[in-house]
């Protein structure tokens, strides 16, 4: 197997608030290999976007970041991005690390022409290029996204949302980063444009071997476009593995519930997970999903579950699978630990009332 472009180990991003630290990302590990797309899914507020920004060193200044983000690209050379001086990080953003945003409407400076955006980005990282070369590379990148050269001198407000997102993608790609985080790149767009953008992202890794972390709510997109998938809940990755395997045979109760809640044309009744993601200042003890989990046991709410690797290669963080893999683990839950957790019923009854 090729060496990963990006290795994240035990990454933590905490926001200090008056009530105490918010553990938005709490000990997350994953690898992304060249040309691979990792889908990152989960409910709103589970830390997906914070994780994406934490990896690129773009977490807000009030956040503290801890752990390891090892970048093995041309400019990265095995360096840990956490704790890298701001100036070094600035040089890596663009040529090595890219970020595509959720809402394209406000991501371009309204006072600058498209040409100025491109030439600024290119000039910052390639001082040696002449004005003409800057222009040619920019127009080439735009043309690749279906934006004609005649629009090169236009202002952002003269484009539609889908066009702006394609411009944003071109702006990220013009520097040929080895690794890109796409943070819900299609959420603000209609389905036709969505399909177009997903196609562009898929072509990208074929043509340039670009690695991608695709953050999304849309499980259909993950099934379509991702090699592997990581399911996030309350700052943790709860299940991670081959995308086909995870979707065909979900292991973690949260993944199962999430997949059951997906709406498609064949959906007859709507399913949802009762309750909402926990308060990340005072997360629940034990497994963080246990208060909402339909198969939670008494012990789940007391002891944090271990990460186990299943025979399929899927990683899961759940007592059910841990005990399946190694029945002796059950002892850690204590006496009576395997009795069903009654709390779930109360929550769901209250929620439906």
């Amino acid at each position: 197997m090729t060496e990963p472009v990006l290795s994240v180990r035990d990454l933590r991003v905490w926001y200090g608030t008056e009530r105490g630290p918010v553990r938005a990302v709490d000990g997350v590990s994953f690898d992304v290999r060249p040309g691979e797309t990792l889908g990152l899914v989960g409910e709103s507020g589970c830390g997906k976007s914070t994780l994406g920004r934490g990896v690129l060193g773009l977490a807000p200044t009030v956040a503290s970041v801890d752990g390891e983000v090892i970048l093995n690209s041309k400019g990265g050379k095995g360096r840990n991005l956490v704790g890298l001086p701001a100036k070094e990080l600035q040089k890596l953003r663009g040529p090595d690390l890219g970020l595509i945003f959720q809402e394209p409407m406000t991501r371009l400076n309204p006072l600058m022409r498209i040409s100025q955006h491109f030439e600024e980005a290119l000039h910052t990282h390639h001082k040696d290029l002449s004005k003409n070369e800057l222009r040619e590379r920019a127009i080439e990148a735009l043309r690749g996204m279906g934006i004609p050269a005649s629009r090169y001198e236009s202002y952002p407000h003269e484009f539609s949302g889908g066009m702006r997102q394609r411009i944003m993608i071109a702006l990220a790609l013009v520097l040929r980063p080895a690794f890109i985080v796409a943070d819900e790149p299609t959420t603000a767009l209609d389905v036709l444009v969505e399909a177009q953008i997903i196609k562009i992202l898929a072509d990208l890794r074929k043509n340039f071997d670009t690695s991608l972390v695709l953050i999304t709510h849309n499980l259909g997109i993950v099934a379509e476009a991702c090699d592997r998938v990581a399911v996030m809940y309350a700052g943790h990755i709860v299940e991670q593995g081959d995308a086909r395997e995870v979707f065909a045979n979900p292991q973690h109760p949260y993944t199962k519930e999430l997949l059951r809640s997906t709406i498609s044309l064949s959906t007859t009744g709507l399913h949802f997970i009762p309750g909402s993601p926990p308060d990340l200042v005072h997360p629940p003890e034990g497994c963080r999903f246990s208060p909402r989990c339909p198969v939670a046991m008494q012990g789940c709410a007391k002891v944090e579950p271990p990460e186990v690797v299943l025979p399929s290669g899927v990683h899961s963080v759940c007592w059910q699978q841990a005990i399946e893999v190694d029945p002796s683990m059950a002892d850690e839950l204590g006496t009576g630990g395997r009795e069903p957790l009654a709390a779930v019923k109360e929550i769901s009854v209250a929620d439906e009332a």
Partner: protein
Amino acid sequence: MSKQSGSLRRYILTRIALAIPMVLILLVLVFVLMRVAPGDPISASQGGKLNAAELAARRHAAGFDAPMYQQFWDYLKSVVTLNFGTTFSDHRQVRDIIIENGGATLTLTFGALVFASVIGIPVGLLAGRLRDSTIDVAGRLFGILSYAVPVIVAAPMLMLAFGATSGQASPLVQLNVPTQTHILIVDAMIVGDWDAVGDIANHLVLPSIALGLLIVGVFIRMIRINLIQSLQGDYIEAARARGVKETAVVGRHAFRNAMVPVITVLGLQVAMLLSGAVLTERIFTWPGIGRQLIDYINQRDYVAVQGIVTVFALVVVVISMLIDFINALIDPRVRY
């Protein structure tokens, strides 16, 4: 795209066309206000010594008993021909007052703008960039204080504190330079009389500060809050994500976006400067239009007052128009 909007030229022409009804409303307002104010120059200057019949005769001679529409028509004509009438008390053309004394008022407001910019822009930028730091808190405090203290308080206090040492105590030397522009300091520069330039500049410092204090607080607060806001913009994070240098992020992306609302508000402050100038000129005996205006008000010379106020109003209209043009140049979305 349908959003491919109008040209800059069309915007400017439309803006000028829209100024015409604005000016008309303004003229009506000035005219009515002048007629509502009590007293007239004749009874004011004669102080009740005239009997009723004689007073009526004098009023008739001055045209004060003409029907309102006639008076308004005369007023409109005087504005269109840019002569604004002849003063009642000393028979000067209002236009001459504007030309002869306007230079001094211009010099003073310019000095105040320079003072407010030199202090306000750097302090505002620093306060916005280093939010909640010592300089931010101090800058905001200074901003509120300077804004809250009116000219009639600030100017005499400055006089008390620095009047003796700033050259304000000595009268302005009689200048022996030919009048070309009616702006004393420029006239002195043209003939190269640098002693005179220095003397004028010396006299200009205190009034400029007194007047500048009126708007420097707005400068600081507006620049600060708009820089903070534009630094939180989505395009700022996007620029950082492309590895744009921090100096360029603040200087190129945030600053220019912050300036659009700042320029708009500062344009409105010009009206404030003009009203402040009237008091400042009076207190520092600065030979501008404002001092003349107060003299004419005391003599109830409403022709003069009406003329000068009309000019002030037109200046404010023209400046707000210029501000819109500048904004349209900076921001491509500002189009009709």
